[in-house]
């Protein structure tokens, strides 16, 4: 349903994405792995229409429609939901206000709509904290809020950028269970990660990128079976 075709993105004079292509099929979790500075966040921003970077060539298609040139809000309204790197919750708003700010009803994608009660069932902690200012939440709670806030827009595809960044191992495993629960609902997820364990546990399909290009594409099992590749591109044995 999401196709990235030969995308070239630039930050000023730096050519970050160099003809990157990938696809996220309906209802699947696709992980993009790569070390820092390899273009993971640039990829997410380019898909979402956020500038910088500047997309100079290539295409992003979603359910057959070209997204390139649309504004971020138009892209979001077509069903893409961004869970950004660094959470970026609205710090001065309460948890409840963060959730209701961008809430959109059912989007006609055939799935039951996300509501406050469904979101609170997935993240009970947020219900306990619903009147608290988002800026006072812990890192793990802010991550839950960042995901929940996006779910309230009822996206059919989630773009998650390094959700495990800065979280303690216990919280990462909790996050894994929560994303698994999301996967059960049939939502498609493009998961950009540095945490190999998390990506491997969740993904149906893995891409490894290096210097803005895809150097591996296959199942987690294929990557598991290829220690040399993991060592070279991800720095883990």
């Amino acid at each position, binding site marked *: 349903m999401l196709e990235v075709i030969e995308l070239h993105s630039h930050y000023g004079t730096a050519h970050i994405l160099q003809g990157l292509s990938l696809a996220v099929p309906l209802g699947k979790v696709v992980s993009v792995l790569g070390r820092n500075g390899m273009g993971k966040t640039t990829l997410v921003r380019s898909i979402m229409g956020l500038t910088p970077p500047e997309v100079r060539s290539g295409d992003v298609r979603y359910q057959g429609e070209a997204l390139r040139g649309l504004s971020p809000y138009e892209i979001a309204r077509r069903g893409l939901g961004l869970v950004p790197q660094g959470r970026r919750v609205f710090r001065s708003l309460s948890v409840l*206000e963060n959730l209701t700010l961008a809430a959109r009803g059912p989007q006609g994608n055939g799935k039951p709509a996300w509501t406050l009660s469904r979101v609170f069932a997935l993240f009970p902690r947020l219900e306990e904290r619903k009147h608290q200012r988002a800026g006072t939440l812990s890192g793990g709670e802010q991550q839950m809020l960042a995901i929940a806030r996006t779910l309230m827009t009822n996206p059919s595809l989630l773009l998650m950028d390094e959700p495990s960044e800065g979280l303690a191992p216990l919280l990462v495993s909790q996050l894994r269970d929560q994303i698994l629960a999301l996967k059960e609902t049939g939502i498609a997820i493009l998961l950009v990660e540095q945490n190999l364990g998390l990506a491997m546990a969740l993904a149906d399909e893995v891409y490894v990128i290096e210097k803005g290009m895809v150097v591996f594409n296959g199942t987690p099992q294929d990557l598991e079976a290829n220690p040399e590749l993991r060592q070279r591109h991800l720095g883990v044995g």
Partner: protein
Amino acid sequence: MPLTFYLVQAFNGITFGALLFLLASGFTLIFGLMRVVSLTHGAFYLLGGYIGLTALRPLGNFGLAVVAGALAIGLVGVLIERFLLRRVWGQPLAEALLTFGLAFILADAVLMIWGGDPRNVPIPRFLRGSVVAFGLFFPKFRLFTLLLGVGVALFLWWLLACTRVGRIIRAGVDDLEMVAALGINIRAVFTGVFCLGSMLAGLAGVVGGAFLSLYPGADAEILLLGLVVVILGGLGSLEGAVVGSLVVGLLDTFGKAFFPELSYFTIFGPMALVLALRPRGLFGRV
């Protein structure tokens, strides 16, 4: 000095603060969301005042003249935002130069149309004279300005705290890009906020035309005071605009009463102090 002197000066300071708030609230709202320091705000005030003055005769009603000034400047604001500011959005220097240049153009246009003699918007009959209390005279028009300022403050507080648009504005102050990425057309919100801020400047102009008077140069004077208000209070903060307006209104009034030859110092001294010790202002976040 007798106590009554202080009471009268405090009343004058607070009511002048209310007039400043009408101007500064829109200014700070626009900056908080859009990060645009709109230097046309003073010109909007003056133009709004003259439009109110001209509209008063055919409309025959001060209230309607205030509405006319506000609506006209709201429209001017929308046109400037959509067709000019939008082209340079995100480039602070270009924005400052554009709004500064527009301020000159509007000021010249005003001079051409209404001439250089000071003009007053006549105070409506029912607001002339004073209310007498504790043996002191409180001019009715100043009381009216105070009530208007309180009313606008309450309206803005309600808008920001209790409405969806207000949530979007506050979220935009925190993280504009993320608001857009959640599917909200932030450009439309920008236009709305710029329109609202401009309307408040136009409204302040008509009231100011009766409170003070209208003359070439009044635009720059009021803009300067408005800038001091938001620097003191903190750019982008409504509470800051309330407190900053009162402080500047009082400082200006007492300064002129005690040290008339130092009247600029009594305002800019405290501003410099705040800039040095707390650059984001009393309530500001940036």
